């Protein structure tokens, strides 16, 4: 295969520009052969090199006293005290999931799990952030059904609970769905594993599944726009084997309990190539690999195929010399392949041999550091004029349509297909704000949430970026958690377009501001660009995954009303902020105006106040307000508590504003009368806006003495049934 002559067409097929090719030739001092070209092309792909995003990512805040390891490793690591660390990351599997929803989503889960356990963590929770096209699009049902089945199929089998996520529908995702998966793991702080290879002569070891011809060109595919004929690229789909992944987790953790491992890295996108290049590059060493030793699933595989294969459930390690036998025994016990495939050299090169010949010889530094970095030109998203958002005639119907519609209805149909309880520590199940998972064997718990409001990011990227970070912070706060750090998955269109790049830059600016103001750094993340079909891009979707800690898992809040006759309070002020709201988009079919403003000082002040109430046991019922505003939050709490509520809204604004405005930094809480009065006083003293809205109880959701009056039974069934009805007969 290496006899193939490199032509401009071949270079182009590999997704490289002429200028990039020239750069390769000068780095190598000669023309690359076919295998080498393949390796350069994946290493320099958008997916692996972050060539369009790196420049801007550098501006994000990544440090805090509790951060043990920020971006750059397989996942981020934070300290949660008592010698324990949390390791987490989020990653996209958008393109493969569109082509084959079950396997695409399944292997997405597999990949993100490996990123986390490769650092020494036992995975304890999975999350998923999903975006689909409009419900009426002919592919939506099929894709949603397949993706959910795939996420469940993998996560359930591996035995890691899938505890939450988010699900949105919008026409901009018709041809580019988003499947972002997040894994959270726990490790001992002094037992964290990194990927930097070291020690000339040390063995390089391959473990896990055999290598087949799966997903060759996957990384380059994830870096290219979709066109009509990409549905032809089908054989690149990889099939996941969660059973093998489960064995791999156990075997790796067992080996990690010894002192045999110097460095370890999963084989993700671009498989063997990117893992070995990254390990060597981080350690400043060379790798010599004998491809004959690579465990192979199929006959006659070429070096090119072996280097670029994206077969799943594989890891690469550097072991201390002399530990091979012990390590091999562990992997054999778990019935997994184990092979010493090479060793560390001092050449600074990646040298590949096959059948006795050298089939590749490339300077590691050039594969990584010489990768192009583009400061792509961009135009900031123009500021929108404010919008005047009118009232609708029938408020009862408006509430029913929203709460019982695609955007706000219950996601139970999804999470009931996920084992969200395995491992026995899920104490905050899906359906609430953040998911809550106990730190096994302690009184502590992790709070986890994924959020972003693409509508806002589209209307005003800076505000949208701030809001996405703030919303995870708020969701964690609403269960009583102290938010600690975030991961992200930045899903955007084609960065070569100035307006898209403007969205990217704007969102990052907003995210950075929010992280700084909330002491909530970014410790890991992933970028997915070119989410575009025939020139029409997705809404900018920087999904944020936040992690926080509850020191005492018993002091936490849930969204369900607990008792009839409790007082309902609103913390925070409601402003006239219906621009880019769900109300405007869903009921009026319009999208204009500025999204709600995120005032980070107020965000922090209100949140800290609410969290303290939960921590000291005054409040155990709390829900933050987001899409759909106050009435949506109130409906959630009433439905979850199986009881009604009666409230009065008289804040000098039109009722539709009070009901549906999406002003940020707001929480609804409920408590018995005496506690509620205490809280009201404390809030007043602290200068925090607080309103007593009304009482829980009854069989209806009642606003302003019957202006809105909906039977809870109707509201509950509308909320519960939209998705199962929609998904009936999906295939």
């Amino acid at each position, binding site marked *: 295969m290496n006899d193939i002559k490199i032509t401009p067409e071949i270079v182009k097929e590999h997704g490289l520009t002429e200028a990039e090719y020239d750069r390769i030739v000068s780095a190598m001092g000669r023309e690359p052969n076919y295998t080498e070209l393949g390796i350069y092309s994946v290493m320099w792909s958008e997916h692996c090199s972050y060539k369009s995003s790196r420049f801007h990512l550098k501006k994000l805040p990544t440090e805090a006293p509790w951060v043990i390891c920020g971006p750059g490793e397989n996942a981020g690591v934070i300290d949660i005290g008592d010698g324990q660390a949390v390791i987490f990351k989020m990653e996209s599997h958008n393109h493969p999931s569109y082509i084959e929803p079950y396997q695409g989503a399944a292997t997405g889960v597999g990949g993100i799990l490996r990123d986390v356990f490769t650092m020494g963590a036992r995975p304890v929770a999975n999350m998923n952030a999903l975006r689909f096209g409009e419900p009426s699009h002919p592919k939506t049902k099929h894709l949603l059904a397949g993706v959910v*089945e795939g996420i*469940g*199929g993998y996560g*359930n*089998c*591996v*035995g890691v609970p899938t505890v939450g996520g988010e699900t949105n529908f919008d026409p901009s995702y018709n041809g580019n769905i988003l499947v972002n998966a997040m894994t959270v793991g726990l490790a001992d702080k002094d037992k964290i594993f990194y990927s930097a290879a070291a020690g000339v002569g040390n063995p390089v070891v391959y473990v896990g599944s055999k290598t087949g011809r799966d997903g060759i060109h996957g990384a380059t595919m994830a870096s290219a726009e979709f066109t009509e004929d990409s549905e032809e690229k089908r054989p690149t789909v990889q099939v996941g*084997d*969660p*059973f*093998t992944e*489960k*064995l791999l987790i156990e075997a790796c953790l067992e080996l990690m309990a010894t002192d045999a491992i110097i460095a370890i890295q999963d084989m993700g996108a671009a498989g063997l190539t990117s893992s070995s290049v990254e390990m060597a590059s981080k350690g400043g060493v060379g790798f010599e690999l004998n491809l004959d030793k690579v465990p192979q699933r199929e006959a006659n595989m070429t070096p090119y195929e072996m280097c670029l294969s994206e077969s799943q459930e594989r890891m690469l390690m550097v072991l201390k010399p002399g530990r091979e036998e012990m390590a091999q025994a562990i992997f054999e016990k*778990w*019935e997994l392949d184990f092979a010493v495939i090479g060793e560390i050299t001092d050449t600074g090169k990646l040298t590949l041999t096959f059948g006795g010949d050298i089939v590749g010889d490339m300077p590691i530094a050039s594969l990584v550091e010489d990768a192009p970095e583009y400061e792509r030109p961009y135009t900031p998203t123009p500021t929108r004029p404010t919008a005047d958002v009118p009232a609708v005639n029938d408020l009862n119907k408006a509430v029913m349509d929203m709460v019982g519609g695609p955007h706000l209805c219950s996601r139970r149909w999804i*999470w*009931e*297909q*996920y*084992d*969200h*309880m*395995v*491992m*026995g520590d*899920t*104490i905050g*199940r899906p359906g609430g704000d953040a998911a809550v998972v*106990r730190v096994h064997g302690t009184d502590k718990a992790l709070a986890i949430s994924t959020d972003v409001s693409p509508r806002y990011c589209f209307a005003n990227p800076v505000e949208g970026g701030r809001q996405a970070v703030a919303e995870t912070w708020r969701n964690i706060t609403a269960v009583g958690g102290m938010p600690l750090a975030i991961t992200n998955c930045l899903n955007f269109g084609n960065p070569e377009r100035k307006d898209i790049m403007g969205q990217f830059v704007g969102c990052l600016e907003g995210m950075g501001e929010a992280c700084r103001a909330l002491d909530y750094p970014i410790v890991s993340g992933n970028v997915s660009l070119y989410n575009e079909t025939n020139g029409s891009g997705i809404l900018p979707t920087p999904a944020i995954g936040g992690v926080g800690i509850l020191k005492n*898992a*018993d002091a936490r809040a849930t969204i369900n009303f607990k008792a009839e006759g409790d007082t309902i309070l609103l913390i925070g002020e409601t402003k006239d902020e219906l621009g880019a709201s769900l109300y405007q988009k869903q009921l009026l079919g319009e999208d204009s105006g500025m999204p709600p403003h995120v005032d980070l000082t107020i965000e922090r002040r209100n949140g800290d106040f609410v969290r303290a109430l939960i921590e000291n046991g005054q409040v155990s019922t709390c829900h933050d307000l987001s899409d759909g505003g106050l009435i949506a939050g109130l409906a959630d709490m009433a439905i979850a508590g199986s009881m009604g509520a009666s409230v009065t809204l008289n804040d000098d604004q039109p009722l539709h504003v009070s009901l549906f405005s999406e002003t940020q930094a707001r929480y609804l809480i409920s408590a018995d009368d005496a506690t509620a009065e205490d809280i009201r006083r404390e809030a007043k003293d602290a200068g925090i806006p607080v309103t007593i809205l009304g009482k829980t109880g009854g069989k209806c959701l009642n606003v302003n003495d019957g202006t809105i009056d909906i039977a809870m039974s109707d509201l509950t069934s509308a909320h519960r049934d939209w998705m199962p009805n929609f998904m009936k007969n999906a295939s």
Partner: protein
Amino acid sequence: MKSAVIVFPGSNCDRDMAVALTKITGNKPLMVWHQETDFDTVDFIALPGGFSYGDYLRCGAMSAKSNIMKEVIRRAEDGVPIFGVCNGFQVLTETGLLPGALMRNANLSFVCKDVKMTVANNDTMFTADYAEDEEILIPVAHHDGNYFADENTLDTLEGEGQVAFRYNEDINGAQRAIAGITNKRGNILGMMPHPERMIEPALGGSDGRKLFTSVMNRLS
């Protein structure tokens, strides 16, 4: 009470079972790897949930042929109480220790949720602490929990009081809403729901505890 939890490749509720046994009986169970051929004498053997061998071919089929199951079968014959949950139940039917088979859920989807069920027979060593016809809330999490047996077998099961638990709603298409059954002798229980996941209020309830205390009381 000294117990053992059998661990197959792909078991994933083995730790949950061990935690429940430790919390309720006060003793840490012995964890026994599927390749073992023998293990210490114990009073109680649990086959945990999970996806042994990935649930490939048929759930529980490959585990049923493992070394350790020969020993488990021998001890079952000696009268040692054997308790299979979810995948463990599937293993028990695949070995023939319990009659019938567990097929794909009728709607083909995995289902994970709390389910109301009824204690159909509280006169077994596993259910004695429950009241007659007690309604309890226990989670399920399975893809293949659709219990099937031919009519004769079903009649026998019912006639002999071998149906231990019944779902109060149809969640997987199981014949006669069967959620759990015992063998004729009464020392083997297999059930799809996970009592080990319902042993403290923080997890959503404690209805699963009585299953373990029933066995404990019987053995003491």
